[in-house]
C-alpha cells in the first residue's frame, strides 16, 4: 500500500529541557492541525527546570485516533544525552533526524533506520550571533527541515508565526529565515518528501486545540467562580494560572479597574481548601485545584465540607503516585482516595472529564452541582488531559443559562418561615435549605460545625439524631445519582456479552481499541463513566454483560474496586485492564490485555464475541 503512511505516523522530538523547544514543537503540531489533519501532541517532560531530557510526541492520525501510540516513525534527536535510547525507540524502517555538526557515534547506527543529518549547530553559529538565538533557532531550523521532509505547507507555518508574533515583524522574519535554512538544507541534500508525509484534509472541522487545565480555568470563569485559593503543585498549577489569565481579560471592571474575582495563593493545600470552604459558606462560588499530595492533605477539610454540607469544588489533576511518585507523569490513581475522602462514613461526588470541552463544561457544572447538592464536587482530571493540548469540540455557552445556586433562603423567605431548620429535610430529597451570613438581622443564623447536630443545627450527642442525619446524607447521595453527569453508552441495545468500561483519558485509546478490534471481528459494548455516584445505567450495564473490562490507569484497578464496592457486583466478571507506568495508556496495550483474557474463550467458542 503506497499511501499507508500518509497522515498516519508518530514523530518524537528529543530535546533538552529549558532550551525553547516547546514552542517550536508546538508550531509543528499546530501546523498539522491547521492542515485539517487530526493530531495529538504529548509533552513527556522531567521534573526539572533546565538540563534533563524532555520529549514531545506528535501522533498524526487520519482516522482521528487521539490516544498515545507506541513506536516512533521519525525521531528528531537534538539531545546527545538521550541519543542511545532514542535510536532504539525508532521503529524498523523509520527515520532518525539528528544534529550532524558532530559525527554520529558509529555504535548508534542501525541498518534498518534511515539517518538524516542536519548540521544544526553549524548553521546556527554561521547565521546567528546572539547565543540565545543560536539555541532557539536550532529548533526552528529542524521544523523547517521537517516541513520539507513531511510536506507541511509553508504558508501555514508562515501564518502561525505571524499570529504568534503580532507586531514583532523582525522576529517573524528571523523565524522564517530559520525555517528556510532547514528547508534549503533538505532540498539540497536529501530526497523529499519521505514516505511518511502529510496531505491536507478536512478532518478537523470546527475543533479547537487546547489543554484541559486551560479549559478548566475558563470553565470556572464562565461558571461564576469568584474566589480561588490554591497552592502550586504539578500538574494542577496551570488551572489557576489559566483562570487568572482569562479573568484578567474578562473579569475586570472597566470603570474602576477592580477585579470581580479574588485569587489567594495559600500557604499550603490545607489552607487552600479551607479558604474555598469559607468562601462557599459565605455564598461565593469558589474552587481550588491540586494533585494527589494536595488531595491527601485536604482530606480533613473534605470531611468537614461533606458533613457540614458546604459547597466545594476541587479539581484534582492526577499524577503518578503514591507519595511524590513521578510528578510529571500521568495516572488515574486518586479515585478511591477522592471517592471516600476523609475519616468516618464519607462519600464524595466525582466527575470525570475526558476532553478539554468536558473540562470546561464540567467545571462550570461542578460549581452548580456543589451548590445544588451542598457538598464537595471533585473533578478527576489528570496530567495527560490537563497539560497536553488536545483536539476538542469547541466550547459552547447558552446565554440564557442561570447559575443554579441551590436551596438558599433570602431575607423575605426567612421572614415568612415559622422556624428555620438548617438540616431539616423539607423536600424529602435529602437536600436542606441554607442561609448565607448577613442575610437577615434576626432569622436564619445557624452554627456551622463538624460536630453532630440536629435538624436545627444545635449540637447533639443523641445517637438517634446523629444516625437520622447520616441517613439523610445517604438520601442526598441517592438524589445526586440523578443529577450528576450520566454515563455515556456507545450503543442503544447490547450487542455483545462483553462490555468495556472506561473514563477520563483512557477514553481515546479505549475507543481506538474498540475500533481496531471490530475490524478483527471482536465486538464490544462500551460505557464511559462520567460521574460517581453511579446511577442505575451503570448497574444495568454491568448486570447485562457476562464480562466487563474496566480500563484504567492505576495498579490496583481502583475504579473496578469502587464499582464492586458500590454496586455489589460479582468481582469475578470484572476484569481489570490496567496501565500504570506513568505514560498514557495505548490502544495496543488495551487490545493485548483483553485478548490475553479472552484467548481461552476464543479457543473454545468464538461465536459469542464475533460481531
Amino acid at each position, binding site marked *: 500500500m503506497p499511501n499507508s503512511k500518509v497522515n498516519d505516523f508518530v514523530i518524537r522530538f528529543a530535546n533538552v529541557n529549558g532550551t525553547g523547544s516547546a514552542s517550536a514543537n508546538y508550531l509543528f503540531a499546530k501546523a498539522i492541525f491547521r492542515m485539517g489533519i487530526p493530531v495529538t501532541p504529548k509533552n513527556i517532560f522531567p521534573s526539572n527546570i533546565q538540563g534533563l531530557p524532555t520529549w514531545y510526541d506528535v501522533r498524526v492520525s487520519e482516522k482521528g485516533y487521539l490516544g498515545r501510540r507506541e513506536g516512533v516513525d521519525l525521531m528528531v534527536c537534538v539531545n546527545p544525552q538521550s541519543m542511545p535510547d532514542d535510536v532504539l525507540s525508532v521503529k524498523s524502517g523509520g527515520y532518525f533526524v539528528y544534529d550532524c555538526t558532530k559525527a554520529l557515534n558509529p555504535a548508534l547506527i542501525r541498518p534498518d533506520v534511515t539517518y538524516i543529518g542536519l548540521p544544526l549547530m553549524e548553521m546556527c553559529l554561521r547565521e546567528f550571533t546572539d547565543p540565545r538565538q543560536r539555541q532557539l533557532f536550532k529548533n526552528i531550523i529542524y521544523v523547517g527541515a521537517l516541513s520539507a521532509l513531511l510536506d507541511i505547507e509553508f504558508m501555514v507555518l508562515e501564518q502561525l508565526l505571524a499570529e504568534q508574533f503580532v507586531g514583532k515583524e523582525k522576529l517573524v522574519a528571523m523565524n522564517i529565515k530559520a525555517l528556510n535554512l532547514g528547508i534549503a538544507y533538505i532540498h539540497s541534500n536529501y530526497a523529499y518528501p519521505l514516505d511518511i508525509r502529510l496531505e491536507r484534509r478536512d478532518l478537523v472541522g470546527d475543533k*479547537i486545540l487546547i489543554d484541559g487545565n486551560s479549559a478548566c480555568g475558563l470553565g470556572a470563569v464562565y461558571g*461564576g467562580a469568584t474566589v480561588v485559593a490554591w497552592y502550586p503543585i504539578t500538574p494542577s498549577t496551570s488551572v489557576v494560572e489559566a483562570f487568572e489569565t482569562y479573568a484578567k481579560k474578562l473579569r475586570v471592571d472597566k470603570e474602576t479597574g477592580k477585579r470581580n474575582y479574588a485569587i489567594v495563593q495559600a500557604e499550603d493545600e490545607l489552607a487552600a481548601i*479551607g479558604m474555598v470552604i469559607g468562601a462557599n459558606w459565605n455564598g461565593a462560588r469558589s474552587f481550588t485545584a491540586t494533585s494527589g499530595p494536595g488531595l491527601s492533605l485536604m482530606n480533613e*477539610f473534605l470531611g468537614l465540607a461533606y458533613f457540614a454540607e458546604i459547597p466545594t469544588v476541587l479539581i484534582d489533576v492526577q499524577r503518578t503516585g503514591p507519595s511524590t511518585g513521578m510528578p510529571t507523569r500521568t495516572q488515574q490513581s486518586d479515585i478511591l482516595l477522592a471517592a471516600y475522602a476523609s475519616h468516618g462514613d464519607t462519600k464524595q461526588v466525582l466527575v470525570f472529564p475526558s476532553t478539554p470541552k468536558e473540562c470546561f463544561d464540567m467545571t462550570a457544572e461542578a460549581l452548580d452541582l456543589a451548590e445544588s447538592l451542598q457538598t464537595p464536587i471533585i473533578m478527576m482530571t489528570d496530567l495527560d488531559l490537563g497539560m497536553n493540548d488536545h483536539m476538542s469540540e469547541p466550547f459552547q455557552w447558552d446565554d440564557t443559562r442561570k447559575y443554579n445556586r441551590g436551596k438558599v433562603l433570602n431575607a423575605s423567605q426567612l421572614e415568612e418561615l415559622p422556624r428555620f431548620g438548617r438540616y431539616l429535610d423539607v423536600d424529602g430529597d435529602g437536600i436542606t435549605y441554607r442561609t448565607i451570613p448577613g*442575610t437577615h438581622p434576626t432569622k436564619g443564623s445557624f452554627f456551622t460545625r463538624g460536630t453532630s447536630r440536629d435538624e436545627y443545627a444545635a449540637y447533639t450527642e443523641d445517637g438517634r439524631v446523629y444516625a437520622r442525619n447520616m441517613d439523610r446524607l445517604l438520601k442526598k447521595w441517592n438524589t445526586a445519582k440523578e443529577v450528576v453527569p450520566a454515563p455515556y453508552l456507545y450503543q442503544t441495545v447490547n450487542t455483545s456479552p462483553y462490555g468495556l468500561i472506561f473514563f477520563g483519558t483512557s477514553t481515546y485509546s479505549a475507543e481506538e481499541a474498540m475500533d481496531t478490534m471490530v475490524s478483527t471481528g471482536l465486538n464490544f459494548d462500551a460505557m464511559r463513566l462520567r460521574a460517581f455516584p453511579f446511577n442505575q445505567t451503570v448497574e444495568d450495564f454491568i448486570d447485562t454483560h457476562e464480562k466487563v473490562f474496566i480500563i484504567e490507569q492505576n495498579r490496583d484497578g481502583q475504579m473496578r474496586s469502587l464499582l464492586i464496592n458500590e454496586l455489589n457486583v460479582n468481582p469475578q466478571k470484572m476484569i481489570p485492564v490496567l496501565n500504570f507506568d506513568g505514560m498514557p495508556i495505548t490502544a495496543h496495550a488495551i487490545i493485548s490485555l483483553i485478548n490475553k483474557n479472552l484467548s481461552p474463550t476464543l479457543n473454545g467458542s468464538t461465536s459469542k464475541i464475533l460481531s
Partner: protein
Amino acid sequence: MTYIRPKFRHPDLPKNDLGYTTREYEGSLSTLCAGCGHDSISGSILQACFELSIPPHRIAKLSGIGCSSKTPNYFLGNSHGFNSVHGRMPSVATGANMANRDLIYMGVSGDGDTASIGMGQFVHVIRRNLNMVYIVMNNGCYGLTKGQDSATADAGSKSKAGSVNPFQPIDLAGLALELGASFVAQSFSGDKEQLIPLIKAAISHPGFAFINVISPCVTFNNNPGSTKSYDYVREHIEETGKTDLVPEKSEILASYESGTGTEVMLHDGTFIKLEKLAANRDPFNRMEAMNALRNARNRNEILTGLLYIETETEDLHHTINSTDRPLNTLEEEDLCPGSAVLAEINEDLR
C-alpha cells in the same frame, strides 16, 4: 456552667442605637466549666458588639477546635458561626472575607489551635493583613483533652499534676508584632474594663487585629505554680495604659483630661483614646512595642493593653485589588463573559 437561663429580662435593660438590648447579642448557654476565663471573654465580645451597635447579622464568627473554639456558640446567636477544623480557622476566615468584604469577621482561637496545629495559618493570615479580629483565649493548656501543656505554657510552669513544663513558650503577641500585624493587643479575661474597649478598637481596625487574652483554665491550669492561673496573672499584670474607643461623631467625654491621653483616629472616623500611657510607651512604634513586651517578660510581667497599632493599613482586598462590592453578590451579568466572547476564544484556538 449554668444550666438554666431565666427568660425574664429587665424591661429597662439599656438599648443601643439599633434599639437592641444585650439580649439580641446573646448566644446559647455555655457548656464550659464554671469560672472559665473564656466565658468572660465571650461576655466582653458580646458587650463590645452591643456597645458598638453592630447589627448581629453583620458579624460572622469563626473558630477552630478546642474549648475556646466552642465559645462562638455562646455569644451572638443572631450571627452566623463556623466552628471549623483544628488550627484552620484563619483559612476559613480568609475565604469568607474574600467572599464578602462587608461583614465583620470575629475569629476565636485557643493557644493549642493557634500556637501549635494552627501556627502556619496564623502566621499567614497576619502576613496577608486580613481584615478580621483574631482573639486567642490563651490558657496555656489543652482543656478538652484534660490539661496537657500547650506551646504557650511558660517554661517552669507547673501543671495541676505537678509536672514542670521544660519548653520555652511561644509569645503570640510578640510573634504577631514580628510578623507585621497592624493591631496587636494583650489582655486578661478577668479585666473587662480593659478588654471590652480593646475588642471595640479591634473591630474598628480596618486590618488584622490580634488580641492575645490570658484566660485561666479553672479546671486544669489554675493551680499554684502555673503562670496562667488567676492569682498569678493578677499579680503580674502590667498595663500599658487605658484604652477607650470613641465611636465616630460621638463627643469626646470631658472626663478625659487633656494632655494625659493619646487619640488615635481610625479609618472610619472612630477614635481610640489611650489614657495614662505608661512612660516611654508609643503605640505607633513597632520596635518599641516589641522591646516593651520582651522587657516585661524578663521581669515576669504580662504587659497588657494596646501594644501596637498602624492606623493607615491596607487589607487583603486592597492588596489584590478586588471589587468594592461583596463578591458573593455578583451575578451572571458580572461574572459570565457570554457566548460571543467564547466564540472568539474558540477561534483563537483553531
